């Protein structure tokens, strides 16, 4: 991750595939916190303009000390069907920014996290450049009044 005063630049991660090639994937390192629990390490989450919300596995909620019995439940639909999600406020840490979001926690999420429009895209002007000499993304924080 590289950043100046207002723009965070992140290269695409090159993920190996079963065919032996590498696939550029828009992953960024984020952290989460809830109350006194702050993840001291970051993990990789997918920047996904097709996702309505920011979504994480339910195991991550448990790591944060969140009691999912107290969370609001709703359903979310994906390409493979619909599933119940648990919605709970957390702090999302990205670069120098800490943003309070309502995150969705899902039992069967196949990856570490999705950064969707509500909670992530609404806070950044995002440029995807998969064709550049260094394929990557730029994030400029947007503050709305």
């Amino acid at each position, binding site marked *: 991750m590289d950043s100046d005063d207002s723009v965070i630049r992140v290269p695409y991660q*090159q993920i*190996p*595939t*079963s065919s032996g090639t590498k*696939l550029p994937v828009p*992953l960024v*390192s984020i952290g989460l916190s809830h109350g006194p629990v702050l*993840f*001291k*390490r*970051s*993990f*990789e989450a*997918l920047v*996904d303009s*097709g*996702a309505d919300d920011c979504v994480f*596995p339910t*195991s*991550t909620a*448990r*790591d944060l000390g969140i009691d999912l019995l107290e969370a609001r439940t709703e359903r979310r639909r*994906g*390409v493979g069907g619909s599933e119940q999600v648990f919605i709970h406020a957390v702090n999302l840490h990205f670069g120098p920014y800490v943003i309070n979001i309502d995150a969705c926690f899902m039992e069967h*999420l*196949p*990856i*570490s*996290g*999705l950064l969707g429009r509500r909670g992530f895209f609404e806070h950044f002007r995002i440029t995807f450049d998969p064709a550049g000499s260094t394929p990557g993304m730029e994030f400029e924080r947007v503050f709305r009044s």
Partner: protein
Amino acid sequence: MDSWIAISQDGSRLVAVGKSFGEVSHRLDELGDEDSVILKTPEEWIPMIL
């Protein structure tokens, strides 16, 4: 597969495996590893449509 993993920063080495982010993070603490990258793997390593 379907696990949380930590891989070395250059992507060449699997450093830790666990059932949750917390488990992998704890394992890295034990190893004194500050640099590895943590992510969750899908059940099958194929291109995804989410």
